[in-house]
């Protein structure tokens, strides 16, 4: 009896609130537990595996990434590398985000086949293990914890990637005639209970790159920014981009450029 009264009261309160206020309250409640959730984040389990993979001699060429892969800060150096990508890599003659760069190192330095990595690049819901590339990305990103985003926008090639990404974000197409900006180009948008960041603002762009790679509570899986971009394409009913494509790097460059100068908190925990 007591319980049904409590529930009925709760329902009345919920229904009488306008949707925006309801979302605001819910988000305030989520925030209360956010610090605790982030402090003990299962993402750390994936970091552990990634560190082992980074240091292990692997692939047909039997070399480690630690002794062969340059993320822009010198061979094997991971500290601070994540927040300084995307950047231009002369050896590949391309602007690459962190994940794309690690894939490049795995194929060029360790001799893995790109097709094998691209076959299943993301952890599926309820899969027991994340792909190696996801663990590696998580490890590398964790080595930039509490550092400021510092993508080299002054580099012309990086600037080109940024501008292309910006144009892509505004490009409307598909059966819904959606662009990224339809949902992410103005303040105050949301999907159900989730507020959507405005990626054209510094605060919104930070929310777009903060917490990626992230441990997703739904399915209990570790996912990367590459996955996030792919899933946005899917939700727009666009064809999904090829894994580790230049298009995705450009979009990440657009967001990271707008987030420059703000603190990256390391791998996150996502809904």
């Amino acid at each position, binding site marked *: 009896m007591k319980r049904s009264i409590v529930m009925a009261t709760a329902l009345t309160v919920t229904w009488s609130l306008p949707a925006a206020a309801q979302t605001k309250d819910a988000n305030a409640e989520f925030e209360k537990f956010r610090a605790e959730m982030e*402090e*003990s*984040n*299962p993402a*750390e*389990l994936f970091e*552990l*595996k990634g560190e082992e993979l980074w240091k292990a001699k692997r692939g047909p060429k039997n070399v480690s990434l630690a002794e062969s892969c340059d993320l822009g800060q010198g061979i094997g150096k991971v500290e601070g590398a994540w927040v300084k990508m995307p950047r231009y890599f002369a050896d590949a003659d391309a602007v690459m985000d962190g994940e794309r760069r690690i894939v490049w190192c795995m194929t060029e330095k360790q001799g893995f086949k790109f097709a094998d990595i691209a076959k299943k690049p993301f952890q599926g819901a*309820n899969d*027991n293990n994340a792909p190696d590339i996801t663990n590696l990305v998580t490890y590398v990103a964790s080595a930039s914890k509490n550092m400021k985003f510092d993508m080299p926008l002054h580099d012309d090639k990086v600037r080109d990637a940024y501008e292309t990404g910006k144009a892509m974000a505004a490009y409307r197409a598909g059966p819904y005639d959606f662009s990224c900006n339809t949902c992410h180009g103005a303040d105050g948008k949301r999907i159900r209970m989730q507020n959507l960041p405005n990626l054209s603002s510094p605060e919104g762009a930070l929310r777009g790159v903060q917490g990626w790679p992230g*441990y997703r*509570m739904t399915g*209990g899986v570790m996912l990367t920014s590459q996955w996030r971009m792919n899933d946005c394409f899917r939700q727009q009913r666009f064809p999904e981009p090829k894994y580790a494509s230049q298009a995705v790097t450009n979009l990440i460059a657009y967001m990271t450029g707008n987030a420059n100068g703000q603190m990256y908190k390391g791998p996150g925990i996502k809904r």
Partner: protein
Amino acid sequence: MADPMKIRAQMKGDVAEIRILMSHAMETGQRKDAAGNTVPAHFIQSITIDVGGKRVVDGQTGTAISRNPVFGFKMKGAKAGDKVVVNWVDNKGDKRTDEATVA
């Protein structure tokens, strides 16, 4: 073999805070896979924590613990350098023991 845990044990004043991350599917036995088949229950049933050679926490868990479990405990009487040993056993008999040192 089961993946390693991540254990952090830190003194805060005279209290040691112990945080444990475990890698485990924690299948409830109620979920269906893509083909519509029920995925059998697979979950941790027993957790123990020993600090400095003494049993401090003895736990039993069911299917409602989240996938990749996270636990936090506190204790008095520990000191920096004490060995922390965490052990789990699941319903299929898989087990894992990992150690850390109180910092």
